[in-house]
């Protein structure tokens, strides 16, 4: 009997580019055998080594899943269409290209409340088991994240932290206990997760996330979760997520307020689209400086855990391109629509950031090394010779007017030290300027101030000031 098999776009390359192939067959199994006999590549995509249809390949006869009929033995009638529908959208790489793991009997019992939810079900629970999730931080956000992700049956949980449990953490970081004070957070979190769900494989990274290790670390995971506590690491997590093509489930907190969203540059905005630049250092207090309501990270971290699970399940309604703003004091949730910024330097149309950078420096945490120009000086005698040979030489006196009254060097311009920066335009940058005062100290300050404020011309300090001029060049100039 002649039957049409509809080939999905993703598999057409293995079926000679055809979108439909007609075969002669009596059952679905025969039809697929006939198809794959001619297209060996396709066979690998549809069947596992044991010769069974792969879990993520759905086969429909008309609008019915053959799993609900007689499987590959399903008989086909004349004019039937067989549709091959591989799971692609939303699924993570691990679930789309590999066999999903089976559940043990213990896991069937443990996850029974998930299994009876159609939205999760056996397939979904297996996806969770296959998933590899990396959480950065085991603090306020990382605590509920670690606990709920472990409880939900995430197969592999990567955890990055380098900190030690402090008594002041216990008000909100509920993955750690009183007995853990002084222990490495990662060890304490590992114990708690093992106790909660020994099925979870923990990959512990007791290290600081850096530009050197982030890409290597991220590439082995399906979903990244940002539970860090500072801007520098947040930009690092974002950039490494975008560069490795991973979704970044984001949450952050401040006193009574939280923000959460899912950044996924392949489907929308990234953190830099929302916040192109970090705030100036010191302006936004940390939890240690500003305080935080202990329950707040519990709520925000739990929202993140919720979204991680939905991302893995390929659920609809992911918190994508929506920034959730939560106010625990008013108990109010608000949302803001996010859009990918086409000019985003990282994920926009013409990216300028193509690798990880120095995030401490980006966030202004490193004191910029101010190259202090060495102070150029001349003696009074040298100045006298200069004046004779260089009629354009400017001489600026930065003393006060009453001092100028007492004594002055000929052809000088008075700009008192306090006014020198705002009157900098009165000095010609294209010509050398000699700066002097009484003894050479104020003039050195004036040069430094001018240079720091962007004066680009050559400035030379008169060593010893007008006093030296009086001593060496012109004794008629009074010393005072």
């Amino acid at each position, binding site marked *: 009997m002649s039957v049409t098999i509809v080939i999905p776009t993703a598999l057409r390359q293995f079926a000679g580019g055809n979108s439909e192939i007609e075969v002669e067959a009596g059952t679905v199994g025969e039809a697929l055998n006939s198809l794959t006999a001619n297209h060996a590549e396709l066979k690998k995509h549809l069947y596992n080594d044991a010769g069974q249809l792969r879990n993520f390949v759905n086969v429909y006869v008309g609008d019915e899943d053959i799993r609900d009929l007689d499987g590959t033995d399903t008989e086909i009638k004349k004019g039937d269409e067989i549709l091959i529908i591989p799971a692609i959208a939303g699924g993570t790489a691990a679930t789309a290209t590999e066999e999903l793991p089976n559940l043990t009997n213990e896991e069937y019992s443990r996850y029974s409340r998930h299994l009876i939810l159609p939205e999760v079900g056996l397939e979904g629970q297996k996806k969770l088991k296959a998933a590899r999730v990396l959480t950065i931080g085991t603090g306020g956000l990382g605590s509920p994240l670690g606990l709920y992700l472990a409880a939900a049956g995430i197969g592999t949980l990567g955890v990055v932290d380098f900190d030690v449990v402090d008594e002041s953490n216990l008000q909100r970081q509920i993955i750690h206990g009183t007995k853990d004070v002084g222990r490495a957070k990662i060890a304490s979190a590992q114990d708690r997760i093992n106790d909660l769900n020994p099925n979870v494989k923990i990959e512990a990274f007791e290290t600081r996330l850096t530009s050197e290790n982030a890409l290597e670390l991220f590439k082995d995971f399906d979903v990244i979760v940002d539970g860090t506590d500072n801007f520098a690491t947040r930009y690092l997590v974002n950039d490494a997520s975008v560069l490795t093509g991973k979704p970044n489930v984001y949450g952050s907190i401040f006193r009574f307020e939280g923000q959460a969203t899912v950044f996924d540059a392949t489907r929308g905005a990234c953190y830099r689209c929302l916040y192109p630049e970090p705030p100036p250092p010191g302006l936004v207090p*940390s939890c240690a400086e500003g305080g935080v309501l202990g329950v707040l990270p519990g709520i925000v971290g739990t929202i993140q855990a919720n979204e991680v699970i939905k991302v893995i399940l390929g659920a609809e309604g992911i918190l994508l391109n929506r920034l959730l703003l939560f106010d625990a004091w008013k108990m109010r949730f608000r949302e803001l629509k996010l859009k990918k910024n086409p000019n985003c330097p990282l994920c926009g149309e013409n990216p300028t950031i193509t690798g990880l950078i120095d995030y401490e420096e980006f966030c202004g945490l490193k004191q910029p090394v101010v190259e202090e120009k060495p102070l150029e000086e001349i003696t009074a005698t040298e100045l006298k010779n200069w004046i004779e040979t260089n009629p354009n030489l400017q001489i600026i006196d930065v003393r006060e007017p009453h001092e100028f009254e007492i004594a002055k060097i000929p052809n000088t311009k008075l700009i008192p030290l306090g006014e020198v920066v705002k009157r900098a335009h009165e000095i010609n940058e294209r010509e050398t300027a000699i700066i002097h005062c009484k003894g050479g100290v104020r003039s050195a300050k004036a040069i430094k101030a001018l240079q720091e404020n962007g004066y680009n011309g050559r400035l030379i300090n008169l060593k010893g000031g007008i006093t030296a001029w009086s001593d060496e060049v012109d004794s008629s100039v009074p010393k005072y």
Partner: protein
Amino acid sequence: MRVLFFGQTAEIVGARELEILIEKSTIAGEAFAEILEQYPSLKEHKLLFAVNQEYSSGDEVINNSDELAIFTAVSGG
């Protein structure tokens, strides 16, 4: 018109919500600028502006029935 403040902007302003009156068909950017003039410390921050829960480009025409929001990034975890 209702103006919402989040994060540190709420502390600078001393309120999470303000009611202000604007003239009919005001440009959003002008309304934001006026708020910044009243609370100059806001200008030290990297601010995000929203009109009716969407990012503001600043050129939306707004009325007293609209809702503005001003907020900053937070980093705690």
